[in-house]
């Protein structure tokens, strides 16, 4: 029965993060379409993002939402299409979630904080 509750919670977390992401993605796409006009350079990106609290908080939230949203989906694909055992699929999916969290927050740090 514990399993069922955990599975229901995973569904709920994925849907909740989806709602957050819907907002983030609309904003991100708009920003990207605006930003890539006339080409894109590293210093251009950094000049916009460096030291910006808005950027930092927005993209940190974005990264966390991704890290919560992606694993349930990958878990389903692994079980249903690759026929992995549920335990193995969950473990790899969660590992991927950690990968997204770590690399994502590192990237946010890189473009907002690092000199």
């Amino acid at each position, binding site marked *: *029965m514990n399993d*069922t*509750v955990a599975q*229901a919670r*995973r569904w*709920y977390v994925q849907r909740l993060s989806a709602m957050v992401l819907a907002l983030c993605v609309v904003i991100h796409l708009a920003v990207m379409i605006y930003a890539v006009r006339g080409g894109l350079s590293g210093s251009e990106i950094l000049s916009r993002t460096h030291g910006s609290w808005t950027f930092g908080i927005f993209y940190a939230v974005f990264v966390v939402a991704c890290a919560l949203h992606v694993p349930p989906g990958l878990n389903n694909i692994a079980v*249903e299409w690759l026929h992995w055992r549920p335990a193995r699929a969950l473990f790899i999916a969660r590992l991927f979630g950690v990968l997204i969290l770590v690399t994502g927050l590192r990237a946010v740090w890189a473009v907002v904080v690092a000199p």
Partner: protein
Amino acid sequence: MNAPTSTTPPTPSTTASPTAPVDPAATLQVSVWRGDAVGQFSRYEVPRQASQTVLDVVTHIQRHLEPSLSYRFACRVGMCGSCAMTVNGIARWTCRTHVANVAGADGRLEIAPLANLPVIKDLAADMSGFFDKWASAKGVFRGTRTRHDDFAKVEPASPERAAANAGIECIGCAVCYASCDVVAWRPAFLGPAALNRAWTLVNDVRDTAQEERLRAVAGDAGCHSCHTQGSCTERCPKHIAPTAGIAGLKRLAGRAALRGTL
């Protein structure tokens, strides 16, 4: 098929009929599954007739061409669901499927047993697993009132009753179950029919087994593995939408999991 808005089965005149003239000399090239899990398609030539249904075709084959062909039917008028088979890859009631709507100009038909169910022989599938899942989903009414109690008062216009009514006409034909890829991918998945029945009971204000039922239909073997492919809703001959009920179960189970009552 025309979509009836009432909950009674459609009368023959409202079901789509072929409008093209039928050449009495025309024959159908029919491939029929013979065997069980292991087998092959056998070919038969069946004379084409006006207003012919796929069930007519199967019956003709068994009576005149292949006496050993096994298949199921009962009412032959679209009320019992016994004649459900896979016609040209799609699960249908064969008594309600006009040949003209599926055979096309080349007159080819492919008839196989329902998918996602073990094959007993030829076109007859083993339905026991389908009904076992119905029971696992707590698809049975549980009440506490006796004949000595007053009638339960159920408001017919209430949202709960409307939700229950939308799914109550299911006759357990397994067309939805045979159309669902999640059933194919996850052997433990309860499937659209069982979940739809659970939904009608979840919305039954007289039922007293709600907590137990919600626990039975939640999780990866239950509603949370539905990916809204919608094949069940697309194929249901009674025009029930299990997708809707399953979405409702997801909401209730999610809420219960949050509150710790699941």
